[in-house]
């Protein structure tokens, strides 16, 4: 299934260290919004029992384009 999100939201997710494929989109046709990414982050941090933080992105994905 294709991931639907605008370029800016894709970038935001990346910068927050979020794999956008894990985020449930609430927009039309499952489109992921910026708020969805924020909620995802908050959900995660609630689970891990600490506050919202910026996660340094993993830098070692070696997927050829």
């Amino acid at each position, binding site marked *: 299934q294709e991931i639907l999100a605008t370029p800016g939201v894709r970038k935001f997710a*990346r910068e927050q260290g979020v794999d956008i494929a894990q985020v449930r989109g609430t927009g039309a*046709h499952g489109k992921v919004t910026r708020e969805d990414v924020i909620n995802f982050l908050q959900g995660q941090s609630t689970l891990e029992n600490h506050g919202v933080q910026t996660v340094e992105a993993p830098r070692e*994905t*070696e997927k*050829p*384009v």
Partner: protein
Amino acid sequence: MVVGELTEEVDVLIIGGGPGGYVAAIRAAQLGKQVTLVDKAEVGGVCLNRGCIPSKALISAAEHYEAASHSLFPGIATTATLDFAQVQTWKQSVVNKMTGGVKTLLKGNKVNVVQGEVFFVKPDEVRVMTEVEGHNYHFEDCIIATGSRPIELKTIPFSARVLSSTEALSLQEVPDSLIVIGGGYIGIELGQTYAKFGTKVTIIEGTDSILPTFEAQLSRLVLRNLKKYNVDIYTNALAQSVKETADDVTLTFTVSGEEKTVKAQYVLVTVGRRPNTDELGLETIGIQMADKGLIAVDERCKTNLDHIYAIGDIVPGPALAHKASYEGKVAAEVIAGRNSVVDYRCVPAVVFSDPEIAVVGLAEEEAKQTYGEVVVGRFPYAANGRATALNADAGYVKLIADKKSGLLVGAQVIGREASNLIAELGLAIELSATLEDVALTIHAHPTLGEMVMEASEVALGLPIHVLGK
């Protein structure tokens, strides 16, 4: 200046100053990096010096000449006379303006620009040769952006009368006759331009259609105009050999086994371009290659060597300036520590033919393969008020959407200003817009952009300005 055997230390080294390299240099410098850009020729690369910009300058001059030579407007009689050498001087002034601009931008962003030919001596060191001497540079990070050059046919080598696009862009006189081998976008753009200036043009294309990478329907209108300019077109034709005299050149070619000859002042060979990766010493440092001389990279534009990146025409993907620049920004940002990746849904492609062709996203067949069922909406220029008022009623806008979701996945425009109309459609695809999103967006009247809205309504089954089935 460092001379002799001293090795200069640089932070980011960029090899090649085309739209990939110079954009990367500016972005890296903006993000705080110390950047050295090396090019063996002029900054601006193929694009500004012998590609996009000079070709588009000649195309717009030819359009202006043609529009005045054959006025489409009743009541406005116009004439045109041509001083082609002066057109070439103007073209060069356009090029100089753009390359001058790039130089100013590089300087303003404190990029150190060096002239010289680069090859690798170690995984973190290059040698830069100028005519008189050589320097070594040791770098932290490196972006290779050496671009591509025209492919030469073994049997028809470049010569005084067998030209590549570079020479064809710089002729000082309009040739009486020209044979173009290769009916891709560069051959069509240049062939059509000279045909408008009065050259008798013959196009030799190996496949069964000009512009073979585009849907057949798209090339039909271009074909019609080429015929209007008296261009001869041979498809399924194979160029065999040339015989050159002081004044002309005779090409022998075969069409389904049958041998033919055609004589002209010049032959222009536009059968493709090959990446400039063969003289860089890439083997010595062990850079991993992909197919066809291209360098393998990941989504961060990184090669298999951790501190070496590659972008533009030397990596897989469409060999287009805007794709090179996009990758240039990504590579620069990654080097500056940002979390950027090559992450586009679509790359537009434009042919500056007459009429213009612009496409973005998937073609209809590709969309069917990916999405199963698709819906298509097509709207003709002839039904658009602005097009009619411009005497430009040839062409159409075609949208392709996933049937289930209505998501726009591809778009094609052929006709006046296609090159600008495609911008909205690229954005629509990137933003995951549906046909309804586009149809419900108010488009100004009377503009060509209305056709985008109307094509969406056609696809949705509620067309206003064409009749449904």
